[in-house]
């Protein structure tokens, strides 16, 4: 404990000295996030500095081993770091599907060569990854995917199409589920493949969403050649890797349920509730739910770190967190009234409230729908027959 307190003091000093003031302001929109990549776009010098300083210490990925670019912290230290960052409202220095999704999968299933090659560049924000899972006819039923990779002796030949590839148009590499055995039962013939989005034959097309944004793409593979050593885990056993990784994705998405107000929406909307007693009642109940959900999130993370978490817990987090986030934005829209419905005006910052509200509707669809999560809970926790 004394060590931990020393670590806390050190960390506090370092953060105080190294986190630029601008990086202690809340993000104004998703645009303010730093994603790194081969050709990184920094909104400010402060943003670049913050990412680089954190990466230098391995604190973009504090609990990864230091030989792979991580901070090598233990769970207690990691929690202290998070607490100290929260204390000064420090922003996340690097948003990355490499960190939140691929990294944990590589740590568990990757070869030593793969870890050494890919993890440090993720930690330093040098390569931006995207995820190739869903296909037009494989949404909730992900395992029915049809993109195929044929073994051509010295390489895989990939053909097919993915959808809902987040930021595929901005990503450098993709981790991708492909079918490598065409005769096996559907879950059994899938492999987990990594490749460069700059490879010949890869093309992307953004999907316009109802929010007016296009964070997702359709991604097409036309005779893409991929080196043989870029399969993670065993060939035809990619489904295990995919499931493991989905757990991490769900955790990340569910975190959105907390939003910016830390479970106290009412305090933020206060002025708008005075003449709407019914909305006030809804918001009060929402605040109860949000603070309660926050407790479950905290419990889940603590249990995960202690190796006590039930494997279906990410499904509960994902389900409850995304439904909550949708509810939050419904309340924000109700409080905002006609102001929140303006779509293009400067006054509304280009329809920020409405567009964010619409965006949240995807939360309970992406990364496995709410229905999929409920099915998982019914099966894996409740052990209901035929679930």
């Amino acid at each position, binding site marked *: 404990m004394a060590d931990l307190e020393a670590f806390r003091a050190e960390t506090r000093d370092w953060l105080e000295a190294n986190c630029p003031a601008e990086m202690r302001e809340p993000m104004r929109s998703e645009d303010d996030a730093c994603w790194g990549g081969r050709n990184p776009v920094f909104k400010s010098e402060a943003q670049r500095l913050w990412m680089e300083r954190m990466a230098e210490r391995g604190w973009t990925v504090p609990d990864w081993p230091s030989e792979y670019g991580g901070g090598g912290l233990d769970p207690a230290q990691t929690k202290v770091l998070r607490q100290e960052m929260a204390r000064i409202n420090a922003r996340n220095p690097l948003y990355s599907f490499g960190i939140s999704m691929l990294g944990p999968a590589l740590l568990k299933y990757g070869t030593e060569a793969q870890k050494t090659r890919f993890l440090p560049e993720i930690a330093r924000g040098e390569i931006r990854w995207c995820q190739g899972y869903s296909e037009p006819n494989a949404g*909730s039923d992900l395992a*029915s995917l049809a993109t195929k990779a044929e073994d051509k002796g010295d390489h895989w030949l990939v053909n097919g199409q993915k959808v809902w590839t987040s930021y595929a148009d901005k990503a450098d590499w993709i981790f991708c589920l492909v079918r490598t055995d065409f005769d096996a039962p559907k879950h059994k013939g899938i492999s987990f493949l990594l490749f460069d989005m700059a490879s010949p034959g890869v093309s992307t097309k953004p999907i316009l969403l109802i929010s*007016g944004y296009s964070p997702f793409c359709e991604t097409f593979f036309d005779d893409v050649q991929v080196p043989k050593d870029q399969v993670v885990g065993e060939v035809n056993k990619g489904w295990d890797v995919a499931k493991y990784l989905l757990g991490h994705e769900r955790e990340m998405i569910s975190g959105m349920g907390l939003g910016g107000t830390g479970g106290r929406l009412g305090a933020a909307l206060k002025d708008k509730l005075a003449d709407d007693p*019914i909305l006030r009642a809804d918001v009060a109940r929402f605040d109860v739910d949000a603070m309660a959900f926050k407790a479950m999130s905290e419990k889940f993370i603590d249990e995960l770190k202690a190796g006590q978490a039930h494997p279906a817990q990410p499904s509960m987090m994902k389900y409850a967190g995304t439904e909550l986030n*949708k509810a939050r934005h419904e309340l924000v829209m109700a409080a905002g009234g*006609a102001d929140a419905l*303006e*779509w293009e005006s400067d006054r509304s910052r280009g329809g920020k409230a409405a567009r964010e509200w619409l965006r949240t509707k995807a939360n309970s669809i992406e990364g496995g729908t709410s229905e999929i999560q409920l099915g998982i809970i019914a099966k894996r926790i409740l052990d209901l027959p035929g679930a």
Partner: protein
Amino acid sequence: MPLYLTEDQAMLRDTARDFMASEGAIPTQLRKWRDMNCKDGFGHALWRQFGEMGFTGILVDEADGGLGLGHVEAGIVLEEIGCNLTPSPFLITAVAAVEALKGTAQREKWLPGILKGETVAALAIDEGAKHRPEAIAVEAKRSGNGYSLSGAKQFVVQGASADFILVAARTEEGLGLFAVEKDAKGLEVEGVRMADSSIGARMTFANVEVDVDALIGGEEVLRRVLRAGRVGAAAEMVGVASGAIGMTVDYLKQRKQFGRLIGEFQALQFRAAHLYSELEIARATTLKTQQLLDEGSAEAEAMVHVAKAKAGQVSTLAVQEGVQMHGGIGMTDEYDIGLYMKRDRVLNELFGDANYHADQLARLNGY
């Protein structure tokens, strides 16, 4: 009146349904005007067609060249408008404004153009982000032979395209409704695109001078206009819900996952059944309210709150479930279900949301 459509009403419904499904369809109207960033947000040609079809005259007295029909008939047209998301001035001009003009001197000036689908009206009630007509602050002071209006309004639907605006303002004798021409001096109008791609407006009135006969009614007329607008918006939301549910149930019968049609999954079946049951309740409520209004019943006031609240709640549930059951493609601009979600949100705010009306009903019932 029994609570179903008469033969004449059923014929009107069939006519309106065919007309709206062809002329008022989403690709033909909503997407067209939206994608060309139209400053009106609706098509004038279609509005003239409304005139030719007689829709514009539904609530106009026969003596004034209209059909002399009632809120039930107006609601029939509105449900089809809602179902097809057809952008048009119908609700504000042919329902709210026509109610306001009933029996006034101003009607001779505006009704002929409305009947032909040439004139467009706007209704300026809200002054803040929410519908709170009790708290109207725009002031109409006596001035010379008339009044001088000062203050600001927002969420004035079709306000940027209107030939005249009905403005709710506070006089010394209480609230009044004023007909103000679009080019009145001191009136500034800013068109604002809303989430559903309709155009609302923000308006400022800087000592806008109007004649004494611009005051077309007092508090009672304002209440009548609000009742008409609210039940009209409820009918349109029943249409939105019905369109969204229809589209979603169709999708459940087409989309396969896990080797089965997703409509075979019991959890989705039950949710769809619940939705349908709610839709039927909203539809019955709206029809009942329209009949009460047409009968001049004292029960109408409470029922208008019920109808707007219930239709709003059901319509919101329908679009939420619609998007969720469509899954990923429901989030894309290419599919129509998201357009229903946007329209629902705007219609819910228009003339007061479900919270407001539940609260008003509670107050009316003394709690």
